[in-house]
């Protein structure tokens, strides 16, 4: 590296805060920046799931079973007026498939901020308004199915919205939990070293040496099955995080080992700060950035774990709705063969996982250009 360039950043440390520096480096990673936006978008969905959904995700109707995604016509004549056609459906006596034919004569106009089922916006404001909908809301004879319906005739789009909410919050909770574990244990391990370190490191190694699936099955099976969906939901996050913290702990420990002897820590010790204080007031903040990066990178794992757990029938199970549940219900031959749209929930999973990865990489590169 040319001397000058090497000099440049350090020079600026005096003027620029660590965060500004991170931001500068982060900006370089275009993909990460873009991913950041995507992630933001996802969490907006989490907040506004019930607003974006236009149908009650649980309402089933045999006569709408396995309806393919409806085509949206944006212009009615010349002026903007999105609508979909009415549909007639029946089971084909020969193929036993349900077939739907559009009835061009029936136009179902899509209304914005339309009346629909009741919910509390952000869990506070009770309302019946939804981003889109049809006249007459739920009781309407004709409705819209942007992404089609599942076997029970439930609207996939709406279910996807709710699924996103659950899956992404699960991820977040899980990460938070493992973050706490990771920082505390990793911190202790790195700060004290010696016996503490060995013990914690062994634990980590053991945890990592046991194939995850049996661990999941064991733990998941151990928790009472008569728990309510909510309890299961939390239990699952805890389980996932119980296995998720090791990576974070490793990062934190590494940092600690690096910093243990650094002046400001030593001085903090000298002025007689209690050790915990030293750790959490002086050391942790100094590598927040790394923790954030590591956390972001842990999220995709959480999401994937959630889907895998559901696949094994251990995670959230219906009537709960999550990405995992939706995918698990799409995990059969007939879906692939005759109702492929039910596999759409895989898309947000893919996008989210990648977005979080790139964001995380970007953050990490920014946090320390040489860091692993």
């Amino acid at each position, binding site marked *: 590296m*040319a001397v000058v360039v090497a*000099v*440049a*950043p350090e020079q600026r440390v005096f003027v620029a805060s660590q965060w500004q520096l991170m931001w*500068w480096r982060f900006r*370089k990673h275009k993909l990460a920046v873009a991913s950041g936006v995507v992630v933001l978008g996802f969490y907006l969905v989490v907040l506004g799931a019930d607003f974006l959904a236009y149908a009650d995700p649980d309402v089933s109707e045999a006569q709408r079973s396995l309806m393919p995604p409806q085509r949206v016509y944006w212009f009615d004549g010349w002026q903007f007026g999105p609508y979909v056609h009415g549909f007639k459906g029946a089971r084909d006596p020969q193929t036993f498939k349900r077939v739907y034919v559009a009835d061009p004569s029936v136009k179902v106009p899509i209304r914005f901020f339309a009346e629909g089922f009741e919910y509390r916006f952000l869990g506070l404001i009770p309302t019946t308004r939804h981003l889109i909908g049809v006249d007459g809301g739920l009781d309407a004879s004709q409705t819209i199915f942007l992404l089609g319906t599942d076997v029970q005739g439930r609207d996939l789009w709406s279910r996807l919205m709710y699924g996103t909410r659950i899956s992404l919050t699960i991820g977040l909770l899980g990460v938070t939990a493992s973050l706490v574990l990771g920082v505390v244990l990793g911190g202790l391990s790195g700060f004290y070293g010696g016996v503490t370190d060995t013990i914690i490191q062994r634990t980590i190694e053991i945890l990592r040496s046991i194939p995850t699936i049996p661990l999941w099955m064991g733990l998941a099976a151990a928790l009472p099955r008569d728990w309510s969906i909510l309890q299961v939901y939390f239990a699952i996050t805890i389980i996932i995080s119980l296995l998720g913290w090791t990576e974070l702990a490793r990062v934190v420990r590494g940092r600690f080992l690096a910093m243990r002897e650094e002046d400001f820590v030593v001085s903090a010790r000298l002025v007689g700060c209690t050790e915990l204080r030293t750790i959490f007031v002086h050391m942790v903040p100094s590598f927040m950035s790394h923790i954030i990066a590591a956390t972001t990178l842990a999220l995709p794992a959480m999401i994937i774990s959630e889907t895998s757990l559901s696949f094994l029938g251990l995670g959230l199970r219906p009537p709960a709705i999550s990405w995992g549940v939706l995918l698990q219900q799409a995990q059969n031959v007939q879906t692939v063969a005759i109702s492929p749209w039910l596999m759409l929930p895989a898309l947000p999973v893919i996008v989210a996982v990648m977005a979080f990865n790139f964001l995380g990489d970007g953050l990490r590169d920014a946090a320390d250009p040489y860091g692993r």
Partner: protein
Amino acid sequence: MTREPLLSVRNLKTYFIQDEGLVKAVDGVSFDVAEGVTLGIVGESGCGKSVTARSILRIVDRPGRIVEGEIHFRRPSANGGPGRTVDLATLEPNGAEMRAIRGAEIALIFQEPMSSFSPVHTIGSQIVEAIRLHQPGGRREARDKTIELLRRVGVSSPEERVDQLSNQLSGGMRQRAMIAMALSCHPTLLIADEPTTALDVTTQTQILELMRQLQQEDGMAIMLITHDLGVIATMATDVAVMYLGRVVEQAPVDAIFHAPLHPYTRALLRSIPRIRSRARLVPIAGAVPHPYDRPTGCPFHPRCAEFKAGTCDRQEPRLTRIGDHHTVSCFLYE
């Protein structure tokens, strides 16, 4: 001095274009290196010495690039007569010709002897590679040559060393091996970038001694980059003083030490201990300004003792010739 110089750099500008801003690492450097002589380049760290060296070899890392200027280098001809001169600045950095010159005709030794060898290849293999790259002959031959070279640069029991990893060698040994590699193809110009900075004093002198001796044997020119005037005094025939990416003064070594013209040069000389002089040390006032915000006018004016308000901070001084071998850029001499 009738023959044109071996290397003549004219108004070289190497900039680093970064998000944080433009860094003018080298900003219009000009100097000559005559055959067989040693040109010392001095300046505080961050004044663009190394970048200049890398610019000449065309191995400046991204995002740095040469934005202006010429680097005329006279390539040796087969018959020893005056060879053809090329402008390195115009060559393709990784083109065939540049690569033919790099390593073979212009060699580089630099600062970190610790890490300048690959940790996973044997010293030998790395030198052999260089030799076989530029010279005909088989592996066997190259290997013998390598052992020969190592012996010549004073590496003890080269037969074993050849097959050792760099981390098995002491710093001094490594630097010797480094030199061996640099000399492996008999370059006409050797660029030594702070070759001794990382070494302890005794090894320093040994290495310098070695270099001088080798120069006499091979008659190559050396471009010695350092911030250590002591080294300059012992090694250089000519000296170029750099400040903030510019050459502020160039002259024969005696002239620099006994009749320095540029205020910065004088300041430098005052800042170093001298044997047999009671004069107390005067550090240079202030610190090297940050490359992002280089001062207007003469870059040195904020720290200059003879600062003339109105001129120094307005116009930029030109490089003016005082006597046939002495050039300086300062308004005092315009």
